[in-house]
């Protein structure tokens, strides 16, 4: 065979193998949720929806879903507000405060969540916020804000600032000019940032594990506790729902922007 053909075949086989590796565990999760028996088998031997029925009857999972939704919404609101205002401020003036802000926001992402979890647990016990929803929301905000902040920095850097000056020249106040000149141009970016914040909160579990009590457990925390005891198809059912939510989020973000832009923002 010609050398180029061999290279082409090897190249294609390489990336298809990685593609399989990336999607296989998710396929296992979805497939095992349809297993009829109480064991986690792949591929399943008998298919049934029995675990889906149990899911809707079990209050532990449903209340965990509510908790996750509450924490996710709280995180989205706080992280988006903090991230958007700070990115906007940084864009207006990249003086030394701005240079201080970027690394300060970034560093928590590199510290093992277990250490953040420990330090916040100690901190919240002292502050009397232990095991409240607020403590989990604040912890998740620490991780979600950098994403919103960097997405918004890149959005604002493409924004035409003359529009803001024009709005001011025409007599608009600061809030009015932001609402009418800036917001319509950056709303897709804000939407994607908010979506990322929500997903980060929905999926995070190490900090949540350290900060939650029985009544504030989120889905990943319940799933983790369940998994440490036994491998149960119920976890697959819950995970299938989580994967579905992620797919919906990707589609929504793709409609708002496009897949390539989204990929660049996530890094």
């Amino acid at each position, binding site marked *: 065979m010609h050398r*180029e053909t061999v*290279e082409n075949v090897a190249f294609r086989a*390489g990336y298809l193998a*990685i*593609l399989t*590796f*990336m999607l*296989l*565990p*998710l396929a296992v999760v979805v497939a095992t949720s349809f297993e009829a028996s109480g064991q*986690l088998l*792949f591929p399943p031997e008998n298919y049934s929806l029995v675990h889906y029925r149990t899911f809707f009857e079990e209050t532990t999972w449903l209340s965990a879903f509510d908790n996750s939704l509450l924490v996710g919404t709280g995180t989205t609101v706080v992280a988006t*507000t*903090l*991230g958007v*205002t*700070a990115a906007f*401020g*940084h864009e*207006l*003036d990249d*003086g030394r*405060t701005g240079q201080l802000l970027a690394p*300060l*926001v970034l*560093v*928590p992402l*590199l*510290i*093992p969540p*277990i*250490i*953040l979890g*420990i330090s*916040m647990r*100690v*901190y919240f016990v002292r502050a009397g916020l232990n095991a409240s929803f607020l403590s989990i929301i604040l*912890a998740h*905000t620490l991780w979600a804000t950098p994403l919103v*902040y960097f997405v918004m920095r890149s959005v604002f850097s493409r924004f035409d600032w003359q529009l803001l000056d024009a709005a001011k020249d025409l007599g608009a106040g600061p809030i009015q000019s932001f609402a009418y000149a800036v917001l319509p141009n950056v709303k897709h970016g804000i939407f994607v940032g908010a979506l990322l914040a929500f997903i980060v909160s*929905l*999926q*995070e579990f*190490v900090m949540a594990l350290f900060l939650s009590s029985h009544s504030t457990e989120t889905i*990943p925390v319940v*799933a*983790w506790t369940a*998994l*440490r005891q036994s*491998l149960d198809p119920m*976890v697959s059912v819950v995970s299938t729902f*989580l*994967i579905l939510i*992620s*797919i919906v989020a990707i589609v929504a973000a793709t409609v708002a922007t496009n*897949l*390539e832009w989204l*990929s*660049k923002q996530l*890094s």
Partner: protein
Amino acid sequence: MSGTHSSLPAPIARVWEPLRERSRSKRALLLMAPLLVFELLLFVAPFLILLRISLTSGSQDLRYAAGTWSLEGYAEVLSSGVLQDAILYSFKLGLIATGITVSIAVFYAYAIWRAEGAIKSALLFSVILPLLTTLVVKTYAFRPLLSPTGTVNDLLLSLNLVSEPIQFVPGTIGVIVGQVYIVLPYAVLAIYSVLSTMDWGIVEAARDLGASRPRSVLEIVVPQAMPGIIVATVISFAWSVGAYAAPGLLASQRVPFAIEVEKRLLSNLQWEIATAYAVIMLLLMAASIGVLTVTLNRFGGEFEYA
């Protein structure tokens, strides 16, 4: 607006004034202030408290003896074989997982960059979907796949590649596979975002000048993608060294730092040891990330982006 700062409490005014002098506009500072305050309250302050507790002495009936000063925690970490063993194991996992992750990520990011249309979308989708799926879910799926009675072993046995099932899970191989799976999407995207700004013409020029395709990638693409590779390495390393989920679900007897520190904090209630342990770990991590970054920077130095 001038009236507001005179009414500020004295400690706040002390912090505010120097910040205000350094910024060109007060409005910009006001917009950045909420995030700054948030980071100080929820990141810097808890961390300082952690540092303070690591300097207290142990207590029989409490988690730590408040108000005391002592280096007992650090002495315990430096003399305990179990604790040091866990750190060594963490760094071993971190280095292996990072090496594998970054090599695969360079290749995959390159494939995405060169792909077009539906294939490109499929490859990007395969990166983003696992990225947005919780660690817990991603990791436990490897148990039915890699256990001695699992799918991979069935396949190996039926192909007669092995005579007995291999125990990947629970074990170190399982932890590494799981950890690579967790960090790979981030690494791929970090490299891809740099590649996508690169000019394909340079690679073509190298090939016209007679470079083979693997050589053109190694000598042109990799150095140019170095800023992305550095980010990918730092992220993979930091997250693998501190990994909690993959070892928690897939490890056997040997446990890394994250599991050990949790044990000291929750089961043994030795907060001064747990916090000292965390501080030492962070220092070691910061040092190794520094070394990694400097080393990698040398390879990409000539092509540094502005």
